[in-house]
C-alpha cells in the first residue's frame, strides 16, 4: 500500500515539475507548481510528517504560489511579448548537465543505506516543536530576523518610484 502511494504521488510530483519548466505561460506553470507541492505534501504524510505536510500546503500552496499568481496577474505580460525560448548550445549543455546530475545521484542513492525502520515521527507538531525550541532555538530566533529583512526589503524594492 505504501509503495503504491509513494509511486503514485512521486509520479504526480515529477510530472507536475516537468510541466512547470516546460509551459510557455507562467500562469500554467504556477498551477502545475501547486500540483507538485500537494504531491510532495502527500509524500510527507507518507513519512508521518503531518505537521510539515500542513505547513507545506499552507505556506507554499497558500502563500508562495498565491504571491506568484498575484504578480503574474499584476504585471500581465501580453501573450506575444513572452520571451521566446530558443535552444542555444549553452542551454542544451545545461539540460544535459542536469540529466547527468540526476543519473549520478541515482547511482549514489543506491549505495546509500539507512536503517529500514518504521517511520519515526520526526515531522509532527510535538517533535518539531520540541527540537525547534530547545536545540535549534538560536536558528529559530535568527529566522525572525531573516523574515523581518525580507519584509523590509520587499516593501523598499516594490515601493521605490523611478
Amino acid at each position, binding site marked *: 500500500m505504501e*509503495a503504491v502511494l*509513494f509511486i503514485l504521488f512521486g509520479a504526480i*510530483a515529477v510530472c507536475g*515539475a*516537468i510541466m*512547470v519548466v516546460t509551459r510557455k505561460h*507562467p500562469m500554467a506553470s504556477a498551477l502545475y*507548481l501547486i500540483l*507538485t507541492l500537494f504531491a*510532495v505534501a502527500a*509524500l510527507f504524510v507518507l*513519512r*508521518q*510528517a503531518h505537521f*510539515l505536510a500542513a*505547513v*507545506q500546503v499552507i*505556506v*507554499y500552496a497558500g502563500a*508562495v504560489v498565491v*504571491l*506568484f499568481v498575484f*504578480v503574474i496577474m*499584476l*504585471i500581465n505580460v501580453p501573450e506575444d*511579448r513572452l*520571451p*521566446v*525560448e530558443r535552444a542555444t548550445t549553452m*542551454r542544451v549543455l*545545461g*539540460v544535459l*548537465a*542536469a*540529466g547527468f*546530475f*540526476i543519473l549520478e*545521484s*541515482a547511482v549514489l*542513492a543506491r549505495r*546509500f*543505506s*539507512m536503517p*529500514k525502520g518504521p517511520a*519515526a*515521527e*520526526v*515531522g509532527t507538531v510535538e*517533535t518539531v516543536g520540541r*527540537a525547534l525550541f530547545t*536545540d*535549534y532555538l538560536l*536558528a529559530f530566533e535568527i*529566522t525572525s530576523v531573516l523574515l523581518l529583512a*525580507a519584509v523590509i*526589503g520587499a*516593501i523598499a*524594492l*516594490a515601493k521605490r518610484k*523611478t
Partner: protein
Amino acid sequence: MIAPSAYLLLSAILFGIGVVGVVARKNVLIILMSVELMLNGVNVAFVAAGSYLGDAAGGVFAFMVMTVAAAEAAVGLALLIALYRLKETIDITELKVLKW
C-alpha cells in the same frame, strides 16, 4: 516498505528538473518557480532522511528551508516588479545592465 534510496532518488529528480528550469528558461517568473522546485526537492530528502534515521533535525531543517523559500519568493518577486517597471520585460537575456 520503501527503501530510503527511493526518496533520495525522487528528491534528486525534483532538484534536477528545477536546475533545468533555471538554466534553460528565459522567463524570470518560471526561473523563480524552478528555484522553489529545487528547494522542495531538498525538503523531500530532509524529511525522508530525518524519519529513517529518527532524528528530529530533518523536520526542523525542512521547516527552515520553507521559511527561506517564502522570504526568497517575497524578495525575488519584489525585485521582479521593480525591474518590470524599469524595463517592461521579463526576459532574463534582456536584463543585463550589470554586464559590461
